[in-house]
Every structure is written in structure tokens, then in C-alpha cells.
């Protein structure tokens, strides 16, 4: 983050702090008892796109409550949790947890502490798996294995974990107080991690050090939505359409369930199923096929191409900066051969940022993709849409998950 963005993040954060009780390192409300804000309608959690604690544009945040398993009083409400349809499981940065919130450690098959290396394309997060009850919008996932990132009890990161990139173990480097992974799968890693001890996956951590270990499916981080008593087959993310210049903040909804209540019907949404082998969808754009494509609220931009447009210098370094806003169109195709057209824009990110330095929500920001065969439809895609993410094996009115629909 450049200094001017930090400065404006600070101003926005002040505003957000007034509105939302906190944007910054201290995300907690302490004891959740009477201090939680009133919940909206059952199965709807609010989303805010406000830059968050690190001032990163186009990150969707929500607020949730975690409690020690079985407790209704030893609880903490935490804001600025990143809503991520590209991963699975709840992760919290340890520094935002109240010292009094004592969560039990998840153990592996040999009774040793189970610790995870969560890898992202741009870094890794290291920390123990603990167990908590999670509540959000009237829904509850009991005895949920979660990752506590940057926990002081496990400070030594194995080389096989840190070898993937920079650490994301603090609020500033993670860009959020935590992450709510509500993606396509039941577990974050799944069968591969249950069968193999994978360097950079789960680790067994007796006192003398950590080594990779196979983790049974039920020991791994779980999709919290799948553990809800109802509304447990997927999620809908609704964000408003934005002006071309963007907005200081955008408010939307994280709706649990697909076709389970009147507020989450599929309607006319087109269902795009995933290739059973690659778990991807196909994007056709500009005469090129991008077979490694996916829709992901946790990616903060549209990521495609290598040098499709000129690359910005600071402050939007690494973004695309075409001379003028480009109106573009792509076709997305599922393994079920269903296709749908997406109209989108790519604006000059520096012009957007400089015109309104306090803005945090944009539809037209994009950057090159590290995988030239991939078109990653990140958060800018979600504005002005209802985007459905259906969980594997779960039935919905649109068929059995996993799938994307919009």
C-alpha cells in the first residue's frame, strides 16, 4: 500500500469504525453477549466493501461470532472477515482474538496438535487448527475446525510451508481480520490431504517440531455452511451495481442456502457446472479460450492475460491501466455446456484511484493473471449480480453442486 492509500484508508477506517465498530487490528467486540449488532433477516449476513484494515480495494467483508464449543457466553464477534468463495473454512488472525476466548486444539490421529499451512497464490498462512462454534445471521456451525493464523504457540514455520511465498500471518499482510471460506467444497483440502502427508498442507506438531501429516476429512477445515442445520447447500452473494467511478463503500448481502428460502431462489440464473477433473470453467474472451477459469469473491480483481493492457505504475502498480475505459465482453461456459455472456469493463486504475482516493469499491479494475490459461472473475464481477456458489454433493433446485450460477 502506498502512503496515500494508507492515509485514505485511515480516514475511511475512522468512518467505518463509527459505523461498524471497528476497522483495524482490533476486530473484536469482546464478549459477544449483548454487544452484537442486531442481525438482519435470518440467513442474510451483511457484506461491506470498505477497504478494510489494509485499505485494499474490492474485498468483501462480513461479521460473525465465534464461541468456545458449547458456550453461549465465552464468545467474540469479529468484523472485517473476508468472504471468500474461492476457499473453504474459517480462518482468524490470532491477534484479533480475545485472550479469554480459549478454543480447544484440534488433534491429529496420534494425539498431536494439528497445524495447517494454508496456501494462496500470493503467500501462505500458518497456524493451528482449533475448534469453535460459529454463528452468523441466525445460522450456526457447531464444533467447527477453524484455523487460528499466527498463533504464538506455533511460531516456527516449517520451511516446506514458507517456501511458497510471503507470509500472510498478520492483519496487515492478510488484509482482513479473518476469512470465511464458503466455496465449492466440503473441506478445504479434501481427499488428497486425507490420503497423503503433503508439504505445505496439514502438519503434525508434537513438542519437537512439525512434520506434514495426512488429516482425516473430519479433522480438516470444514465449509461452515455445510454444517448449518438448514440453508446448507451453498451461498449467494449480492452486491449492488456501481457507478463507473466506483464508490467509497458498497453494501451487500451474503445469503445462505440456494433455493431454500424466498430470498435465495435461483430464478433465471445460468448454472455453470465444473469440469469433474479440473474443477474449472471455461472463459472465451477476445478469441482466446481460458480453460482454467473460476469465479472467486476472494480475488480482489479480474485477473486475466499477461499484457492485454498497459500495466499501471504506482499507486495502482501491477493493475491494468488502459488509456481509456474498455467495454468488453466474454462468454463463460460450464462443463454442462451452458454458456452465458458477461459484459465487463477495464478502467485505468490509476485514474480511478486518483479521481477518488477514498473509494474502495470498483467494477472495472483488473490485472494480469499468473496463469495465462486462467480468467479469474474476482470481486469486480460480483457487483450488480447475484452470484451462486453451490457446495459439492449438495442438492439444489439447479442440480447437485459443485457449480457456479449467476
Amino acid at each position, binding site marked *: *500500500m*502506498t502512503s496515500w*492509500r494508507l492515509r485514505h484508508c485511515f480516514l475511511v477506517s475512522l468512518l467505518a469504525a463509527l459505523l461498524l465498530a471497528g476497522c483495524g487490528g482490533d476486530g473484536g467486540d469482546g464478549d459477544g453477549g449483548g454487544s452484537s449488532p442486531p442481525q438482519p433477516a435470518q440467513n442474510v449476513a451483511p457484506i461491506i466493501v470498505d477497504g478494510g484494515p*489494509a485499505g*485494499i*480495494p474490492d*474485498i468483501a467483508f462480513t461479521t460473525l461470532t465465534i464461541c468456545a464449543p458449547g458456550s453461549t457466553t465465552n464468545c467474540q464477534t469479529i468484523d472485517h472477515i473476508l468472504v471468500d468463495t*474461492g476457499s*473453504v473454512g474459517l480462518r482468524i488472525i490470532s491477534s484479533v482474538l480475545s485472550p479469554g476466548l480459549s478454543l480447544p486444539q484440534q488433534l491429529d490421529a496420534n494425539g498431536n496438535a494439528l497445524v495447517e499451512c*494454508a*496456501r*494462496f*497464490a*500470493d*503467500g501462505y498462512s500458518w497456524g493451528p487448527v482449533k475448534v469453535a462454534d460459529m454463528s452468523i445471521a441466525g445460522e450456526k456451525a457447531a464444533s467447527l475446525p477453524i484455523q487460528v493464523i499466527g498463533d504464538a504457540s506455533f511460531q516456527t514455520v516449517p*520451511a*516446506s510451508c*514458507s*517456501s*511458497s*511465498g*510471503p507470509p500472510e500471518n498478520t492483519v*496487515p*499482510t492478510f488484509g482482513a481480520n479473518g476469512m470465511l471460506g464458503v466455496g465449492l*467444497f466440503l473441506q*478445504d*483440502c*479434501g481427499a*488428497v490431504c486425507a*490420503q*497423503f502427508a*503433503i*508439504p505445505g*498442507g496439514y502438519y503434525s506438531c508434537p513438542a519437537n517440531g512439525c512434520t506434514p501429516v495426512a488429516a482425516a476429512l473430519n479433522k480438516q477445515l470444514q465449509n461452515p455452511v455445510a454444517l448449518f442445520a438448514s440453508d446448507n447447500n451453498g451461498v449467494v452473494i449480492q452486491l449492488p451495481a456501481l457507478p463507473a467511478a466506483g464508490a467509497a463503500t458498497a453494501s451487500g448481502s451474503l445469503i445462505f442456502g440456494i433455493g431454500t428460502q424466498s430470498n435465495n431462489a435461483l430464478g433465471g440464473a445460468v448454472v455453470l457446472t465444473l469440469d469433474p477433473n*479440473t*474443477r*474449472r470453467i471455461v472463459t472465451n474472451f477476445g478469441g482466446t479460450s481460458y480453460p*482454467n477459469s473460476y469465479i*472467486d469473491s*476472494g*480475488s*480482489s*480483481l479480474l*485477473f486475466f492475460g499477461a499484457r492485454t493492457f498497459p*500495466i499501471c*505504475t504506482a499507486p*495502482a*502498480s*501491477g*493493475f491494468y491501466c488502459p488509456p481509456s475505459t474498455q467495454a468488453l465482453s466474454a462468454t463463460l461456459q460450464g462443463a454442462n455446456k451452458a454458456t452465458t455472456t458477461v459484459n465487463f469493463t477495464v478502467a485505468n486504475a490509476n485514474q480511478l484511484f486518483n479521481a477518488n482516493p477514498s473509494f474502495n469499491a470498483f467494477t472495472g479494475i483488473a*490485472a*494480469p*493473471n*499468473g*496463469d*495465462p*490459461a*486462467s480468467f*479469474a472473475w*474476482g470481486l469486480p464481477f460480483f457487483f450488480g449480480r447475484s452470484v451462486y456458489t453451490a457446495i459439492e454433493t449438495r442438492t439444489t433446485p439447479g442440480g447437485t453442486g459443485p457449480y457456479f450460477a449467476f
Partner: protein
Amino acid sequence: MINIRVKKAGKIVARFVLLVVCTFGVRLPAHAALGDTEASVFADQSQISATVRTMRNARYTMHELQTPSGTAVREYVAPTGLVFAVAWQGPSMPDLRQVLGARFDEYVAAVAANRNKRGPVSIQLPGLVIQSGGHMRDFVGKAYVPEALPPGVSPEDVQ
């Protein structure tokens, strides 16, 4: 993308390859580093109990190591016998500290210096390109030395 202009690339690459070869002694069981010899590919094979598929053409040799857990790591060897590119795809990533050798810290610093977005990264350092994409369960990426690409080989050939 860290858009650092490539200057004096040839000299830097030569120094880089030398540096990587010199750090050979601290290798951990992992994957061949850029600039390593072809022999290192087969050392990898035994260390990670991977199966290897080899494809040769006039421009380069590609060894694909398939780990038991399903990650494919492809190591591209130039006719000079040196590894000029490494690509990966699957539920895990290769050990980038190993693949990038002495340049790993530079890569980490470059990504960390650009925390203005979340998602795939595409980093250009002098004499080195690193692209890391995908997401949990499905990572895709590659690292290569542009100036070491054999004649007739483009970055798109590395995948």
C-alpha cells in the same frame, strides 16, 4: 505485476545461473532449481518418489514429475543441459525456495511490497519471471529465466 525493467539482463542471468549453481550444496529434498543441471531432475525423482515422463524435441527436454498427491512439476532443460524453466499444476506447489534458489527472497519481497490486491501474482525481476496462480486445491504457476529460453522457445511453451 512488479514491472521492473530488465536491464543488463544477460550479465545478470549469467551471474544468477552461477549463483544458483553455487547454492546447490544447501538443496533440500525438493525440485530442481533454475540453472541446475539435468541430473538434478533425476535426483528429484528419487527424493519425492515421483514418476517421470520425458518429452524431447529439438529445442528442449521437458521432464514431468508427478507427485503421488497429484501435483505435476515440469522441468525444462535447454540443449546446454541447464534447467531454464519450472512449471507446476495441482493441489500443491513446488518448493519455490528451491526452484528460485538465491532469488527466492527477492520474489517474496516483491510480492509483499505489492499488497494492493489479493489473487494470482505475476512478478518480473531482472532476468527472472515468476507467475503463481490458481487457488487452494488447484495451483498453477511457472518460473523461468527469459534470457535462458532456447532459440524458438516462448514463455507460452512453458506450462
